[in-house]
């Protein structure tokens, strides 16, 4: 109670603090602002208020690095929307040093196919081979590891046009994105991942970050700031693709991606049944040939597979 006015004045000072033209995210004060404004430390005498406040400030600053991408996203920022083939819509957001791409595709409007690539090169080179005039988007796919000789090898179920290219991994979490190649998309959780074998196209990845419109992932030791992409579906069959990017590839953790994903879904008013994270880091890619834009690491890497979203000409013709 006593600290609240001091908190508010400090908060207002911080809010107005110039960034000196640098793009270093000062996101910790996003966490600090509401806390300072709501601080109600009863029983603290007049004398220790400032030290207590400074201590609080330092403590919060130390512990709040994890929220960077999310807190920057929650600030007012620039967002540009464009229409794509198949009534799909893309919105690109710029906030701080981050970019977020959201693509919403209404049910049945695109054909989703999985492509076994196994290509070493840039993402642009890898995806060039599958992009057609109907392509709405190409999204980076699943994981890869190494064989005993150190050569790259894809990991996780990959089915392309009814042919199993890579076997199902017995992961206890994550799921399988499936498609009939004709407008129907579904994501199965790990316990029923074998269902992926019934579909023409399937790609296994991990983890599921949003389940029944709730964040469903917790921070673990390996979760670090990387570029991220997730693909989710609603029970009606709509698809929401979210990509979080940073120039140096240090966009955010899976937890941050999940929180942003849910925020975008809520803003759109869609109930996401499941959203499955694809490979992060250099593998996190979104290419939009129709508007000649691509997002993700631009350097050489290994691309085991990709998910392609093409305009569903047959559906459109029927209508």
């Amino acid at each position, binding site marked *: 109670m006593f600290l609240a006015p001091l908190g508010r004045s400090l908060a207002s000072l911080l809010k107005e603090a110039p960034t000196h033209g640098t793009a270093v995210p000062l996101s910790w004060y996003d966490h600090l602002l509401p806390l300072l404004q709501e601080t109600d430390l009863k029983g603290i005498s007049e004398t220790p208020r400032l030290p207590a406040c400074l201590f609080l400030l330092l403590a919060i600053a130390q512990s709040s690095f994890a929220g960077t991408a999310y807190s920057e996203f929650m600030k007012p920022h620039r967002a540009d929307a464009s229409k794509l083939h198949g009534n799909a819509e893309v919105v690109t957001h710029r906030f701080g040093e981050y970019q977020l791409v959201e693509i919403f595709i209404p049910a049945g409007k695109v054909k989703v196919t999985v492509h076994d690539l196994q290509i070493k090169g840039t993402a642009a080179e890898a995806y060039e081979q599958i992009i057609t005039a109907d392509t709405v988007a190409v999204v980076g796919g699943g994981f890869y590891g190494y064989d005993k000789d150190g050569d790259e090898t894809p990991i996780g179920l990959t089915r392309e046009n009814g042919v199993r290219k890579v076997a199902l991994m017995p992961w206890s979490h994550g799921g399988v994105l499936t498609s009939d190649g004709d407008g129907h998309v579904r994501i199965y959780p790990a316990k029923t991942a074998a269902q992926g074998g019934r579909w023409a196209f399937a790609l296994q990845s991990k983890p599921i970050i949003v389940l029944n419109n709730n964040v469903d992932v917790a921070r673990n030791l390996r979760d670090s700031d*990387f570029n991220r992409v997730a693909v989710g579906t609603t029970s009606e069959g709509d698809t929401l693709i979210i990509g979080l990017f940073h120039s140096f590839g*240090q966009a955010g953790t899976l937890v941050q991606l999940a929180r942003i994903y849910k925020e975008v879904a809520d803003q759109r008013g869609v109930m996401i049944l499941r959203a499955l994270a694809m490979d992060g880091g250099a593998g996190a890619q979104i290419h939009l040939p129709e508007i000649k834009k691509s997002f993700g690491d*631009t*350097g050489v890497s290994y691309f085991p597979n990709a998910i392609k979203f093409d305009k569903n000409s047959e559906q459109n013709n029927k209508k």
Partner: protein
Amino acid sequence: MLSFIKKHKLILGFIASGVVSVVGPAAVYFQDEVKLVIKDREAKVEIFTPTLKVELNKKIEIEARIDSVGRDELSPGILSLETDAQFISLKPSRSVKLGPISGSHSVDSLPEAIAINIPNKPVKIIARYTSGEFSTVSNNLYIEIVKPAIALHPHFDRSDTGRINLSGEWEIQLGGVPGTMTIRQGTDNKINGSFSVPGGTWSAGAVSGHKDGKTFRAHFSIPGKENTETIRVAGYFDLDGAKGELIELEGCAYHLLRSPLTYENGGAEGVECTSNSAFYDYWEVTSAVRFYAKSPFDKNE
């Protein structure tokens, strides 16, 4: 006594036949329970490890043996490892099912134990064997979890098969000028360390970045100018040599200056080492040179 039996033989015979007629069927009906009660089942469970000191994020090698020391065979049961989950993770679950055991039995499908946190004292592990009503526990193992030592060379990470750890000392060339780089890769694939190129434009500084898949993305600092300048290094690594005993990393190093510029197209980093081939929001590329690094690779580490 004999005279008593003779005198009352009719009554005693009647009682005996009554007892037999009741106890007999009851004994048949409850035979399993009766056998269970009088079964002599005993077991001794022992767990071993080749080393009581394990590095963080490494697998803890545990072996278990069950000796059936009773008269009767042990019926199918369960062996569970018990420990502090805050420090040691057991996967896929903490228990394994076992068949009947007679004599000595080595358990070869124990849960995988991974050291996931550093405690301030050794962590206890025990095994509990349960077979029906019978249950016993093993000896205690006390595992000390320690910080990983810096590996001398990049290597396969044994605790996570198929991953490459870039930790170690590297010979580097920054724009053709030779030097060294010493880095350490964390469990989250973050990289930290230092570089030294005595004859170069940027002679020494810190290295920070990350490894992902086969990509190496890092910043080489320019001491005193950390807020306004950096060297962005982007490369791709491969195992080389006849037996893959060498690891090579090739890419580009870009000198960046802080700028308000943002770009619609990011170009392609680490491919063509020119100042107009890669673009980074809020930075301007002033020059680019080729980056090369190599180090011995230890496949068996």
